[in-house]
C-alpha cells in the first residue's frame, strides 16, 4: 500500500467524498417519502444518471473484461443490448407509469404492483422476490470488492475480508442514515466518476495499443478465434446474452424503482438519450480493458493472465499510470456501491413496508424500521460474502436472472394490462423465483440437460414470459382493476 500512494489516495478520497455527500443528503431525510424515493421530486437528468450508476455493477469492471478473455467477441453480446434497453425501459415501463395513477401514489415497486393488480398477495410475492434477489445481488457486489482489492492488499483471505468489510461499512453508513436521498446524490457522484474513468481507460487503451487498428492487428495473431463474430461461444450463448440483458432489464427492481422518484413521470422524452449516452461512456471501461490486455499479451508486452478475471487488476497495476489506476479503482468502487445502495433500499422497503402491509399489519415507525432493516441487510450481505464465497458467486450469477424471470413478465405485460385476475401476477412472480433459482442450480449440477454455453437466466426468463401469456388466458378478469 505504501508504494502506490496516488492510487490509494484516489480510492480513499473517493470514499471520503461519497461519505460526505451521503451524510449531507442524510440531514435532509425527514420522512419515509425521502427515505424510499428521495422525496419523489427528482429531475429527469438526475434520475437518468442515478439509473445508469445503479445499472452497472462491479461485474462490468471486473467480470466483463474477464468474460471477454474467455469468450472473445461473443462476450460483447452482453453489452450490445444497452444500445436499445434505455428506449425499451422508456416505452414499456415509463409510458404506462406516466399514464396511470399508481406510479405517483406508490413508494415501492411491490406497492405499485399490488395497487395495479388490486392484490395484496401480488405485493407480498413481489416483496419476497425483491428481498431474496437483492440479498444475493448485494453479497455478490461485496465479494467483487474483495476480489478486486485482494491483489492490492497483499493477497490472501485476510485481504479479501478486509476489503469486503471496508466496502460494506461505507455503503451501509450512508444508506442507513440517508436512505434513497443519500443514495441518489452519491449515485450522481459515482456516475460521474464512472463516466470519467470510461473515457480515460479507453484513451489509455488506444494509446498503448497503437489505436484501434493496432489493437485488432495484435488480437488477430492470437491462436484462438478471439475476433470471430461469435468468438469461441455457440450461437445459443449470444442469443441468451441478447435476450437476458436486453429484455431482463425490464425486471430489475433497483432500476424500475427510479421511475417512482420523478417529479413529473410524463416528462421522460429524453430519458433514453440521457441513460443510453451515459451508459455508452461507462462501457468504454469494459471495451478498453478487454481489448488492450489480450492485445498486449499477444505482443508479449504483458505476461499471460493467471485467471481471466484478473484482466482489470492487471490493467490497473501494469498498464495505467497510478493516477489513472486510482480513478479506475474509484470507479469500480462507485459501480459496486451505487448498485449496492439501491439494492439495500429496495430490499429494506420490501421487508418493512410491503410485506407487513400485505399481511394487513403496516409498521408504525417505518422510518426507524427502514434504517434498522437496511443495517441488518448490509450486515447479512457482508456475512454471506465472508462465509460462503462459492455460494455467493452462484447467487450473484443468478440474481439478475432471478429478477428478470420473476418481475419482467408482470412489468412488461402486466403494466399495460388491467383485465387480469390477481392470482396471475402472484403465480408468475413466485414461479419466476423458482425458475430463476432452479435453472441456475440445474445448469451447475451433474444432470445438466442444457447444451454447452446456454445462459440459464435467459431460459428461465423465456419460460416465465411464456407462462404469463398462457396463465392470463385462464385468468381474465371481467372487472378492471383499480
Amino acid at each position, binding site marked *: 500500500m505504501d508504494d502506490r500512494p496516488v492510487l490509494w489516495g484516489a480510492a480513499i478520497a473517493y470514499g471520503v467524498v461519497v461519505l460526505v455527500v451521503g451524510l449531507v443528503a442524510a440531514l435532509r431525510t425527514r420522512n419515509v417519502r425521502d427515505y424510499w424515493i428521495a422525496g419523489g421530486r427528482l429531475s429527469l437528468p438526475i434520475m437518468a444518471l442515478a439509473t445508469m450508476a445503479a445499472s452497472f455493477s462491479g461485474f462490468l469492471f471486473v467480470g466483463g473484461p474477464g468474460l471477454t478473455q474467455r469468450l472473445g*467477441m461473443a462476450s460483447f453480446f452482453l453489452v*450490445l443490448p*444497452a*444500445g*436499445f434497453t*434505455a*428506449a*425499451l425501459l*422508456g*416505452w*414499456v415501463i*415509463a*409510458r*404506462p407509469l*406516466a*399514464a*396511470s*395513477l399508481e406510479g405517483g401514489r406508490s413508494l415501492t415497486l411491490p406497492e405499485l404492483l399490488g395497487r395495479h393488480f388490486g392484490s395484496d398477495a401480488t405485493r407480498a410475492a413481489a416483496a419476497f422476490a425483491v428481498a431474496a434477489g437483492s440479498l444475493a445481488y448485494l453479497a455478490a457486489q461485496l465479494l467483487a470488492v474483495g476480489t478486486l482489492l485482494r491483489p492490492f492488499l497483499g493477497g490472501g483471505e485476510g485481504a479479501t475480508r478486509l476489503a469486503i468489510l471496508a466496502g460494506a461499512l461505507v455503503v451501509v453508513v450512508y444508506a442507513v442514515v440517508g436512505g434513497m436521498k443519500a443514495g441518489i446524490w452519491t449515485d450522481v457522484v459515482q456516475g460521474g466518476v464512472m463516466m470519467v474513468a470510461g473515457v480515460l481507460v479507453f484513451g489509455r487503451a488506444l494509446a498503448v495499443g497503437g*489505436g*484501434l*487498428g493496432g*489493437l*485488432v492487428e495484435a488480437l*488477430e495473431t492470437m491462436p484462438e478465434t478471439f*475476433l470471430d*463474430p461469435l468468438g469461441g461461444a*455457440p*450461437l*445459443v450463448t449470444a*442469443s*441468451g446474452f*441478447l*435476450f437476458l440483458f*436486453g*429484455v431482463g432489464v*425490464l425486471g430489475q427492481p433497483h432500476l424500475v424503482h427510479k421511475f417512482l422518484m420523478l417529479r413529473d413521470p*410524463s416528462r421522460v*422524452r*429524453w*430519458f*433514453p*438519450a440521457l441513460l*443510453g449516452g451515459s451508459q*455508452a461512456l461507462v462501457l468504454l471501461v469494459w*471495451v478498453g480493458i478487454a481489448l488492450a490486455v489480450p492485445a498486449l499479451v499477444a505482443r508479449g508486452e504483458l505476461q499471460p493472465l493467471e485467471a481471466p478475471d484478473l484482466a482489470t487488476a492487471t490493467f490497473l497495476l501494469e498498464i495505467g499510470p497510478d493516477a489513472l489506476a486510482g480513478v479506475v479503482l474509484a470507479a469500480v468502487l462507485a459501480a459496486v456501491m451505487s448498485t449496492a445502495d439501491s439494492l439495500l433500499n429496495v430490499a429494506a422497503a420490501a421487508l418493512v413496508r410491503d410485506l407487513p402491509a400485505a399481511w394487513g399489519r403496516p409498521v408504525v415507525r417505518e422510518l426507524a424500521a427502514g434504517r434498522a432493516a437496511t443495517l441488518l441487510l448490509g450486515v447479512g450481505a457482508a456475512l454471506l460474502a465472508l462465509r460462503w464465497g462459492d455460494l455467493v458467486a452462484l447467487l450473484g450469477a443468478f440474481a439478475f436472472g432471478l429478477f428478470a424471470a420473476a418481475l419482467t413478465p408482470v412489468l412488461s405485460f*402486466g403494466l*399495460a394490462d*388491467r*383485465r387480469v385476475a390477481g392470482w396471475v401476477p402472484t403465480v408468475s412472480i413466485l414461479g419466476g423465483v423458482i425458475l430463476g433459482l432452479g435453472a441456475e442450480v440445474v445448469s451447475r449440477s451433474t444432470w445438466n*440437460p*442444457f*447444451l454447452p454455453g*446456454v445462459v440459464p437466466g*435467459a*431460459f428461465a426468463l*423465456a*419460460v416465465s*414470459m*411464456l407462462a404469463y*401469456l398462457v396463465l392470463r388466458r385462464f385468468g381474465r378478469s371481467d372487472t378492471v382493476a383499480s
Partner: protein
Amino acid sequence: MQDFRFPGVGEGVLLLSLLLLVLAPFFEGLGLPSVLAAVTVPCLLVLRAQRRAKGSLLGGLMVLWLLLVGSLVSLWSSKGPSDDPGWRLVILFGGFYFLPLVLSSVLFALLGRERPER
C-alpha cells in the same frame, strides 16, 4: 391501456419467439432462430406500447432495422471492404450499439410521449 393485446399476428409471433428461446437450449439447430427471436421480443414489446398510427410507422422502421441487422451480420462475417483489421470492431460497436442507441433514443423522443389518462 386496459387490455394487453397485440395488433394482428403480433401475439402469435411473440409466443413463437418465446417458444424458440425455451427450446433453443436443448436443440443445436435452433441457435440462429433463437438469435432472431431474442431481437424480435423487445421489438414486439415496443410495438405493443406504441399504438395505432405511430405503431404502424414504428413497425415499418423495425422491419427496415431487422434488414439492416441482417446486412451488418453478413458484412461482419466477411472480410469487409478494406484490409483495415479494425473493420469488425467498427461494425460491431457502430452498427450494433451506437446506431440502435441513436435511432431508438430519437424515435422515443419523437413518438414516445404519453398523455396521462387521468
